[in-house]
């Protein structure tokens, strides 16, 4: 099997619209949470979210940088975020000007958990109020999940595999794992891989709140609402944004002198076969995904220095933690594990990709990001360094990233430095 490395990174998150700003804010312990500004949320049970900030904010997102005005008008925000993050990653990798032969071997696997929910909501209202003749001709392709991959391939002329994963909140991790396999199996030499989401809209907040997944008791203290492993946690904080990496076949990256961030060495997938929203109580699905990723990596359990947990600030946090403890055994004492959802919220289909990038930056800078708001760890959290409140300098040689989604779908990725 061919080796696969990461040579470019791109981020659009509630803590910054580029990799370095976002990472600096994350390490500084800042929170991206606040009252919802995108719409009037006063009648919602949850009135807060981690929104991507407007262009005039110190770390706001300017869509004009990489996305044509016309495209912006036609598509949902998750596609805009995805195009921008993909552009950042290509620029970072120095691959914006590939030859036609290279572009035949370069593809996209950028997915989303839900897709264009805000646009589906607003166009449904147009249909109801004005009738079918007023529905936009751009309605369908402006909302489809695979249209990040579609738009990016058109913009940069990438003619290799064009793919889009849809596995709810494990989309980003599955996207990277699947794309890495495409390179390993010689379907492509370069893949843009990641995930994006933007569902901060009335029906998105109402739907997740109705499913009892969102926090509702911190509306007056948004920055304290996302508190994985803390005994007062009561649901996730909706985030939005995108993460995209450039994956590249190792020999090709080495030959062109590319900056190599990390190697993708392990990928594990499993299904809970249990319940549509609740994880299997013993965490057996999470355990098997991590176990498979570790087995494929060839590493010893003690080689993992950092785990970026799924840790959504829900009841499921302790199920994941239990599975980690069972799998790692004594080795759990030597690693650090944090949930960066405490700072940026839950990016749903974008989460696994954004968090994989945080794992890579943890290896680059030898520092692990904190779990904010972890004031009183729940019973069962003892014996694991959950990096409460502040980032910590430490050795980070290899990392594990977990992502789990509705439907009982689990993905784990293992990466290491070269």
């Amino acid at each position, binding site marked *: 099997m061919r080796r696969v490395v990461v040579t470019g990174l791109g981020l659009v998150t509630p803590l910054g619209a580029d990799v370095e700003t976002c990472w600096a804010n994350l390490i500084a312990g800042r929170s991206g949470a606040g009252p919802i500004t995108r719409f009037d949320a006063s009648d919602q049970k949850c009135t807060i979210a981690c929104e991507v900030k407007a262009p005039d904010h110190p770390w706001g997102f300017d869509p004009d940088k990489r996305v*044509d*005005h*016309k495209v912006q*008008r036609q598509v949902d925000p998750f596609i805009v975020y995805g195009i921008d993050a993909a552009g950042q990653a290509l620029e970072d990798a120095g691959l914006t000007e590939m030859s036609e032969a290279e572009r035949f071997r370069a593809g996209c696997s950028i997915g989303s958990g839900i897709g264009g929910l805000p646009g589906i909501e607003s166009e449904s209202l147009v249909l109801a109020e004005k009738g079918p*003749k*007023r529905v*936009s*001709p*751009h309605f369908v392709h402006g909302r489809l999940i695979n249209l990040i991959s579609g738009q990016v391939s058109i913009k940069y002329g990438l003619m290799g595999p064009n793919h889009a994963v849809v596995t709810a909140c494990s989309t980003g991790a599955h996207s990277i794992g699947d794309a890495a396999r495409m390179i390993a199996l010689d379907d492509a030499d370069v893949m843009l891989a990641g995930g994006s989401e933007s569902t901060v809209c009335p029906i998105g907040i109402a739907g997740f709140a109705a499913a009892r997944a969102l926090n509702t008791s911190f509306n007056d203290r948004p920055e304290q609402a996302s508190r994985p492993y803390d005994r007062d946690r009561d649901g996730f904080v909706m985030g939005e944004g995108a993460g995209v990496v450039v994956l590249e076949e190792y020999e090709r990256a080495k030959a062109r002198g590319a900056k190599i961030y990390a190697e993708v060495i392990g990928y594990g997938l499993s299904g809970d076969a249990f319940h549509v929203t609740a994880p299997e109580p013993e965490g057996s699905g999470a355990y098997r995904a991590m176990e498979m990723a570790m087995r494929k990596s060839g590493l010893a359990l003690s080689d993992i220095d950092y785990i970026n947990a799924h840790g959504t600030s829900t009841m499921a946090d302790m199920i994941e933690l239990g599975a980690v403890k069972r799998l790692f055994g004594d080795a759990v004492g030597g690693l650090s594990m944090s949930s960066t959802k405490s700072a940026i919220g839950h990016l749903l289909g974008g989460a696994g990709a954004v968090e994989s990038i945080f794992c890579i930056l943890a290896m680059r800078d030898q520092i692990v990001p904190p779990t904010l708001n972890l004031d009183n760890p729940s019973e069962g959290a003892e014996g694991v360094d959950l990096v409460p409140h502040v980032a910590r300098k430490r050795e980070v040689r290899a990392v594990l990233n977990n992502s789990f989604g509705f439907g009982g779908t689990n993905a784990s990725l293992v990466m290491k430095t070269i």
Partner: protein
Amino acid sequence: MSETADRVKKIVVEHLGVEADKVTEDASFIDDLGADSLDIVELVMAFEEEFGVEIPDDAAEKISTVKDAITYIDEHKG
């Protein structure tokens, strides 16, 4: 310039993201302003909405320049 022309040009600028000075009356939506067939469908819908006219498909197919749109609207608006 007529009031219709002003409003048509404003819609074209907004929808196609082009510079206002490129939207001359002779400009072709597809050849000069970068529109595709779906953009034209959307523009026609926007004209219908703005001017309260109905532009049937066979008439819409004949609208290829900014002037075509202005003329049709002026002839059919109430």
